[in-house]
């Protein structure tokens, strides 16, 4: 178990990087608390897998240091770091039984057979693999194989952290639910630092206590799922988290009001200081969940289309030529001719050059 920290960590795959563009990971300082559940969330190419490889020691960063409980482990090889990793595709040792697979990391470290066997039994019971212990690993389904990969990480009592690299990619939706909740339960029972890399927001948000959103080799925001949903610090987070993402409307701010294209005005509950906005690109952000479409709404919109998602519906509308999405409660049927949209003022956010503008005190 360990607290993992980075100091001025950066990485470039180029031997002689010439500028920030050559860096897969821009300089960052960050810490993962001991026994926390974290997710690294971002699109492909954002640097999340690079960061994970640096933590596990499979990749040595070109700049900066990695600290485990304050000790500099940057030059350490993976086996010395005591981390476990679960990969995108299940890795099992084909010729071994499930029991031998789970015992493998212990055997390699010379753990006495009796102790190893007790650990394996414990981990198998946590993962629901007890019945399969005697079977050949390669004859199992993808979800059971992934449980074995996970079990090999859990079986070591001294493990500093367990790293997950998109572990549910090859798992069917139904089994995803089971594995995900089991993972979360496991984290309760085995308090170890877990870091989960994914591009899937649902997986990241449901698994982690704190989510690290990454884009272009940088950390854009670190926060709880509700913080990322309710107060995205960056338009990227607003767009990336939520399905559909946040509506972003270009606007100007004039005397405490946001002026949208078409001249529509929206009163801002907490208008920012004027000088903070000067010369910057201003956008008004509102999540589809915080809009309401009704006859008696504020702004007139053109209803383009309604998507039926079963338990909720999404309206695609147009406000003065701008495409917006709004969620509709089940059962509500907006009329297409006289639809008007209302924004919940408590969830309106202002962004300048993509960054959240804090309200003036």
């Amino acid at each position, binding site marked *: 178990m360990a607290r993992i920290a980075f100091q001025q960590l950066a990485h470039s795959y180029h031997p002689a990087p010439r500028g920030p563009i050559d860096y897969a990971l821009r300089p960052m300082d960050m810490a993962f608390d001991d026994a926390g559940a974290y997710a690294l969330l971002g699109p492909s190419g954002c640097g999340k897998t690079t960061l994970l490889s640096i933590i596990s020691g499979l990749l040595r960063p070109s700049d900066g240091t990695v600290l485990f409980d304050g000790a500099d482990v940057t030059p350490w090889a993976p086996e010395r770091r005591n981390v476990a990793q679960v990969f995108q595709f299940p890795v099992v040792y084909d010729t071994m039984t499930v029991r031998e697979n789970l015992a493998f990391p212990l055997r390699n470290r010379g753990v006495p057979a009796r102790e190893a066997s007790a650990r394996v039994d414990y981990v198998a019971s946590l993962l629901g693999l007890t019945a399969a212990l005697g079977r050949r690993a390669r004859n199992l389904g993808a979800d059971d194989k992934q449980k074995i990969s996970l079990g090999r990480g859990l079986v070591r009592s001294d493990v500093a952290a367990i790293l997950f690299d998109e572990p549910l990619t090859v798992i069917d939706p139904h089994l995803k639910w089971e594995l995900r909740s089991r993972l979360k339960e496991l984290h309760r029972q085995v308090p170890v630092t877990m870091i989960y890399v994914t591009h899937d927001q649902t997986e990241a*948000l449901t698994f982690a206590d704190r989510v690290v959103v990454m884009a272009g080799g940088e950390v854009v925001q670190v926060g709880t799922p509700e913080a990322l949903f309710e107060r995205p610090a960056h338009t990227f987070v607003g767009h990336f988290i939520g399905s559909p993402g946040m509506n972003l409307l270009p606007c100007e701010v004039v005397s405490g009001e946001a002026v949208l294209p078409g001249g529509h005005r929206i009163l801002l509950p907490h208008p920012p200081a004027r000088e903070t906005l000067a010369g910057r690109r201003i956008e008004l952000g509102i999540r589809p969940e915080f809009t309401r479409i009704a006859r008696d709404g504020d702004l007139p919109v053109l209803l383009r289309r309604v998507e039926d998602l*079963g338990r909720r519906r999404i309206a695609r509308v147009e406000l003065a030529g701008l495409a917006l999405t709004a969620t509709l409660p089940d059962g509500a049927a907006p009329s297409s001719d006289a639809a008007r949209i209302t924004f919940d003022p408590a969830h309106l956010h202002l962004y300048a050059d993509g960054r959240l503008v804090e309200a003036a005190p």
Partner: protein
Amino acid sequence: MSLMLEDIALSAGGRVLLHPVTLSLEAGSLNVLLGPTLAGKTTLLRLMAGLDRPSGGRLLVDGRDMTGVGARQRSVAMVYQQFINYPSLTVFENIASPLRVAKLPRAEVEARVHQAAELLHLAPYLGRRPLELSGGQQQRTAIARALVKRAALVLMDEPLANLDYKLREELREELPRLFAESGSILVYATTDPAEALMLGGQVATLWEGRLTQFGPAGAVFRRPCDILTARVFSDPPLNEAPARLAGRELVLANGRRIPALQRGVEGECTIGVRAHELVLDDQPGPDAVPLDATVRVAEVTGSESYIHLDVGGLAWVVLVPGVRRPEPGERITVWLDPRRLFLFGTDGTLLATPELAEAA
């Protein structure tokens, strides 16, 4: 064109891969094959394409029997989960390849490729090679190739599965419109119920090589004909519990009684209720009954929370709006509203649909 499958079936080596399927697909329609891995989605796609020969049944195109005709002689385009492009050709040549095979005049090829590239946002990359592009752009190239061919039948086998979540969302929105304009029959296989709903159109649910239901996505979702369909089409998984119908009441395993909507049926049955139809705090209706549950784990997405429960030994999931984080082990009451229940007979057939779904 129209595509008609009449009792199309496939078995190989003594194993049934696909039980007889009868389906009728109309020109310009969007059809989703929904089912878990190995349900028979790819098998069915391959039969439609003419890549495999069915072991039984007939396949009619515009009323003409085309059962044994190979893929080459049919007007078919296919997009796979893997990004399949010609690595040594430019994006332009990749998209143009089916037109070159058809020996179209050069001007026509140019025009069609540029039009497709425009629609799929590939215009700036026409001179590059596929491997220099991102995964999303590679798959767009493969889709553009299917589009320019103007095939009467376009088959897609989990085309977005290898893409990032957000890219998936984007392409999923564009796809139905791209192909609706061309008048092609689009058949799209997926394992994800949410995807089937977002795409809209018709849904065919598959389970272990059997077609269980075919109809408009919303209708199949709200009125699945049997428990298999309901399971395939529920994400989070369908919450189930054994029960017994006795006169005007439904008796649960723990002895709780629920006023039953369906009358005149006696005996064993299974209740099914979707995660978002369960309620945690307030009694949702006068007939709702409370069930005791223990919290296993809570998952919060920021706007909603999935609470995993142990309800008398059964694993259930409840979806509640907002943020809620009950501690594992906490005792909690979950309300079961008879107006939101599915009722299935012992053979799995649907006995009753939720009243609220009927209304919608």
